[in-house]
């Protein structure tokens, strides 16, 4: 169980930094302060070792051979499927489809689930705070089918307007697509409530979990989702790994999305028949070594416990929010009561791009720009923000370094 308190449970503060080789790097003579985990997390040694072990000991194509290596590689790969199922609270490992990341997972749902079901005039509701990866795939399928994409509004804290959402739901609503956690604002959305209302009008609920898997406990049953997408690289696993969870009955009905090897039952020039889920959706050789390492990442997170990770990050969020509030001219973008440790902000008179360059010279890595969420920038009337996004390996000292760096930005721009 992902939410179980693991072996490391104790009242001591979490200290996992030493398990991350990259965090020992220096940038221009400064110790690295990595505050860009919403873009991608760093990887613990356990994950690096698992991927290396796959290639040193198990490397063979999965689901293909009768030889021992292929059998062992397949077992390791399928073992990771069970781990993802456990992390998300899936009833059956067959409900887990391995993909390259959340983007691919959402495109799969848009093309294979939604496209055959959409007619002109149907509606897809997407929140105003979505990452482009949970917006553009819906725009594409809308263009292909004549359906419409409508945005669910939010307020100035970055909290969804549930009353407006209820009014938007109707007999034409086919899909509600929502991020569990907003990458630009940190908002944790009330997915269970959104799903309950969506199901009331017969719409399917597609959840982008790219920003949640490494930060909050996830239980797809309790959330009432129909599909849930995660990216491995945002949860301590290698890039190019990810998973889609979908309800078995829905996945069974859906046509394949990509054709190729490993997704067929039989092939002839008269036609082909498809394998069962999840193989039906996994054409071609997968990133097996990466997926096995994703399993190791889940094991690593579960050993700490997602509850404990959230507690640690909540402490950083409170500390960081207070520290940034004391910086003159700083305005936080995204102040929802329920949010993760993402601190997005603008600094009066200084463009985020300049902030990012100056912080980088201090060894502080932040993201600047629109965070692939241009509608969010539009809503708050800013062209871009600076974003510090934290993870389990961050400390209060990292936030102190950020605040000191921002003071230097203000000095350089002559604001004090």
């Amino acid at each position, binding site marked *: 169980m992902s939410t179980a308190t693991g072996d490391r449970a104790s009242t001591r503060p979490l200290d996992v930094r030493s398990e991350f080789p990259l965090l020992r790097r220096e940038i*221009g003579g400064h110790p690295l302060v990595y505050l860009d985990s919403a873009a991608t997390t760093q990887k613990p040694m356990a994950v690096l070792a698992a991927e290396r072990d796959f290639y040193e000991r198990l490397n063979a194509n999965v689901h293909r051979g009768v030889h021992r290596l292929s059998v062992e590689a397949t077992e390791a790969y399928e073992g990771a499927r069970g781990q993802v199922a456990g992390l998300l609270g899936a009833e059956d490992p067959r409900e887990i489809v391995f993909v390259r990341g959340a983007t691919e997972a959402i495109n799969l749902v848009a093309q294979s689930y939604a496209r055959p079901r959409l007619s002109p005039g149907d509606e897809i509701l997407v929140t105003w705070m979505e990452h482009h990866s949970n917006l553009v795939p819906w725009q594409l399928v809308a263009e292909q089918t004549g359906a419409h994409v409508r945005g669910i509004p939010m307020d100035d804290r970055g909290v969804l307007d549930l009353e407006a959402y209820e009014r938007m739901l109707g007999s034409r609503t086919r899909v509600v697509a929502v991020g569990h956690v907003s990458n630009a604002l940190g908002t944790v959305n009330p997915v269970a409530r959104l799903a309950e209302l969506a199901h009331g009008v017969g719409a399917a609920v597609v959840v982008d979990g790219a920003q949640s898997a490494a930060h909050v406990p996830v239980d797809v049953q309790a959330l009432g989702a129909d599909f849930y997408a995660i990216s491995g690289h945002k949860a301590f696993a290698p890039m190019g790994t990810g998973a889609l969870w979908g309800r078995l009955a829905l996945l069974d009905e859906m046509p394949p999305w990509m054709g190729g090897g490993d997704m067929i039952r039989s092939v002839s020039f008269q036609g082909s028949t498809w394998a069962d889920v999840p193989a039906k959706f996994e054409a071609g050789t997968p990133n097996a070594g990466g997926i096995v390492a994703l399993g190791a990442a889940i094991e690593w997170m579960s050993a700490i416990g997602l509850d404990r990770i959230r507690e640690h990050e909540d402490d950083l969020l409170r500390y960081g929010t207070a520290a940034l509030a004391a910086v003159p001219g700083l305005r936080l973008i995204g102040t929802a009561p329920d949010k993760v440790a993402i601190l997005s902000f603008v600094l009066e*008179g*200084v*463009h*985020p*791009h*300049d902030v990012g*360059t*100056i912080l980088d*010279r201090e060894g502080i890595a932040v993201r*600047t*720009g*629109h965070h692939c969420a*241009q509608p969010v*920038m539009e809503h708050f009337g800013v*062209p*871009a923000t600076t974003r510090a996004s934290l993870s389990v390996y961050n400390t209060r000292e990292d936030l102190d370094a950020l605040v000191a760096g921002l003071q*230097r930005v203000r*000095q*350089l*721009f*002559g604001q004090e």
Partner: protein
Amino acid sequence: MDSDLRELYQQVILDHHRHPRNFGELDSPDGRAEGFNPLCGDRVNVELKFGAEGRIEHVAFTGQGCAICTASASLMTECLTGKTREEGEALVEDFRELVTGTRDAAPGDAEERLGKLAIFAGVREFPVRVKCATLPWHTFHAALASESGRVSTE
């Protein structure tokens, strides 16, 4: 504070960022273009008007960008005034070579032509910021070429 940063954010650059010159729109411009950097959201609109003897009488800009982009646009409008089309194009190329570091800071014709624009030489130490400095110039180039051009850094 490290010297590369001081070099990048010189007082002149910060001054033009805070008080951009020729910021605004022109009445019936002869050329106009819109520049956009989709990676960071910087946006610059450049308008120009020719005067007697085919010389640029006025260049103005509007938009929203970082200090490097805004200062580059502001200084650009000052430096282009009075230039012919050909001289303007040559300056675009000189500036591009200056900030990408393909031209040394050694004295020469280009150095003379660049004049106070030489303060942007520090940008070459920050490769990811080169596009911020060149966006207004690419946009000016597009404004010369067409009456309603659109240019993107990507």
